[in-house]
């Protein structure tokens, strides 16, 4: 490959433009701009001489035409001429550039669009929840139509398979609570209250929250991705055409599976958290198993356990709904799949924390 070059020779009618080297997109740099500058104010006719040109492609032809079009007398003959004709036919007279909107306008436009989108998202969620309740009632009225295989499958993949990570996470949280509590309470001389602290914290808050957040990251995302890619693949359309309701086939099994599995997972999480707390107390304070568990039974009322468990079904619904709703909202392209999966996780974690705070306030007012 040789670099592109040009030479302009004056003649009677105007000038002859001699091109040499390769005039192709791979070899061209600024030569074309120089040529355009050179010919900017030219009068008279321009003849093209391509005899010394190696490779000429559409990029080269386009740039030569762009520079010399105004004064060009005729297109060159032969192969190259065909190329010039093709490019000339396709080249637009003026590429009307889109007028850029002002930054201030864009700024307020973005805020407005964001607000409108938030409102729309809230409306969609309400819409989805309503539809879901109707379908749930319908599923209850005719349990024989329930997709039992799908249900059991989701129970396994979203429930049983999540058990190890949930146990490990809760174990560590229980251990950390005990460790921090021991240090703090020992300085007050009431280290034995560690047992109570671990019990209340794990039963009431941590086991539920940690399980919920893990399921949001694990299941909300996978529900959204599964349903979303089915949507992209037109599988949802195919279902509807066959007469299978996508809510009944895809959403209900997922919601029910989490409703059934999350309490079990939370219970396992609670047990793991307590064991984590116990092991730390044993190691740091020398509180033996007999003492730890009898003290736990005496000081931590069973109400704390029920308070924790009472939140689980609500969180399970939120997680499953966020996943399924965003999965169904996926449009044809990959971009929206990514955006909806992200939205499913972010929304479900956000809702978990908000709902947990609401529960905390309600139970405090009720003195439970």
């Amino acid at each position, binding site marked *: 490959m040789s670099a592109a070059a040009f030479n302009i020779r004056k003649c009677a009618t105007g000038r002859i433009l001699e091109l040499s080297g390769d005039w*192709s*997109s*791979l070899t*061209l*740099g*600024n030569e*074309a*701009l120089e040529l355009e500058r050179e010919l900017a104010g030219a009068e008279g006719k321009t003849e093209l001489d391509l005899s010394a040109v*190696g*490779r*000429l*492609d*559409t*990029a080269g032809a*386009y*740039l030569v035409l*762009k520079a010399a079009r105004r004064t060009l007398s005729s297109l060159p003959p032969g*192969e190259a001429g*065909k*190329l010039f*004709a*093709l*490019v000339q036919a*396709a*080249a*637009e007279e003026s*590429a009307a550039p*889109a007028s850029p909107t002002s930054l201030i306008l864009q700024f307020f436009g973005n805020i407005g669009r964001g607000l409108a989108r938030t409102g729309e998202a809230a409306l969609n969620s309400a819409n989805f929840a309503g539809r879901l309740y109707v379908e749930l009632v319908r599923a209850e009225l005719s349990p024989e139509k329930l997709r039992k295989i799908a249900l059991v499958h989701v129970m396994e993949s979203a429930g049983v398979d999540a058990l190890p990570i949930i146990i490990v996470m809760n174990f560590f949280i229980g251990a950390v609570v005990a460790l921090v509590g021991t240090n703090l309470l020992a300085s007050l001389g009431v280290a034995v209250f560690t047992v109570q602290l671990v019990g209340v914290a794990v039963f009431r808050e941590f086991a539920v929250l940690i399980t919920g957040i893990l399921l949001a990251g694990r299941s909300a995302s996978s529900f959204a991705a599964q349903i979303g890619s089915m949507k992209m693949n037109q599988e949802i359309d195919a279902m509807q055409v066959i007469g299978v309701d996508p809510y009944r086939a895809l959403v209900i099994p997922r919601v029910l599976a989490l409703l059934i599995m999350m309490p079990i997972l939370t219970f396992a999480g609670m047990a793991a958290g307590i064991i984590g707390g116990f092991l730390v107390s044993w190691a740091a304070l020398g509180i033996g198993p007999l003492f730890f568990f009898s003290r736990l039974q005496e000081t931590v009322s069973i109400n704390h356990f029920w308070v924790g468990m009472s939140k689980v079904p609500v969180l399970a619904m939120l997680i499953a709904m966020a996943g399924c709703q965003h999965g169904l909202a996926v*449009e*044809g*392209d*990959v*971009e929206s799949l990514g955006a909806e999966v992200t939205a499913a996780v972010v929304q479900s974690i956000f809702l978990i924390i908000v709902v947990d705070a609401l529960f905390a306030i309600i139970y405090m007012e009720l003195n439970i």
Partner: protein
Amino acid sequence: MTGADAEPAPIRVAGLRSAFGEHLVHDGLDLEVRKGEILGLVGGSGTGKSVLLNTILGLKRPDGGKVEIFGRDVHDPDASAGIERRAGVMFQGGALFSALTVGQNVEAPIHEHTALPNDVVRELARLKIRLVGLDARVADQMPASLSGGMRKRAGIARAIALDPEVLFLDEPTAGLDPMSAADFDQLIRSLCDSLGLTVLIVTHDLDTLHAITDRIAVLAEKRVIATAPIAELQHSEHAWIKAYFNGPRGRAAEASYSDERRTH
């Protein structure tokens, strides 16, 4: 334009063997695409057309044999450097980058491989979009908002962005209505003539095969069993080739094509 005779065939496949586990897809497959020709590649479902295309493109490693483009081994990283600048590919669905506008899709290879200023790149991309018969306004649209046919055209625009010497087309007319498919055939023929392209088309469209291919390679029995102009293949004695070109659809395509030739 320089010493065409001395150059090796742009695409050469020799003794190719591809296997998936125990299942042998190609065994001793030879194929040669000559400079400046449009070669059609046909074969029944499951005969490994896509595997062959992917192997030629360097996306899949062969289990034996050699693939050369411009005399360079595609699967040798040292030798194959720079081939992507001289070859363009249109995938079946267009395979446009969904995060970019159509214009940016076409600009992508130009930006990657040239030193041209940004506004020139933009203009060139628009030129390519016009060349494939799309409105220049399409350049600002996202691929998701295009119809299947427009997406294929945009895919070609990206494939010819760098004026490649060889062009690979995977089922270019599949899923298009007959008028669009005929337009598409014309488009490929005219691009090929005016840009001096060497084209390898994987297709099942008998009209396309009649209208624009110079030769056709038939893939069967794990190798290329025949490479010849369509007129010759129609008189082949091989059972599969006979069934393919002389079946009801093959005869209809041939009839309509010879009518067309008479009226022009």
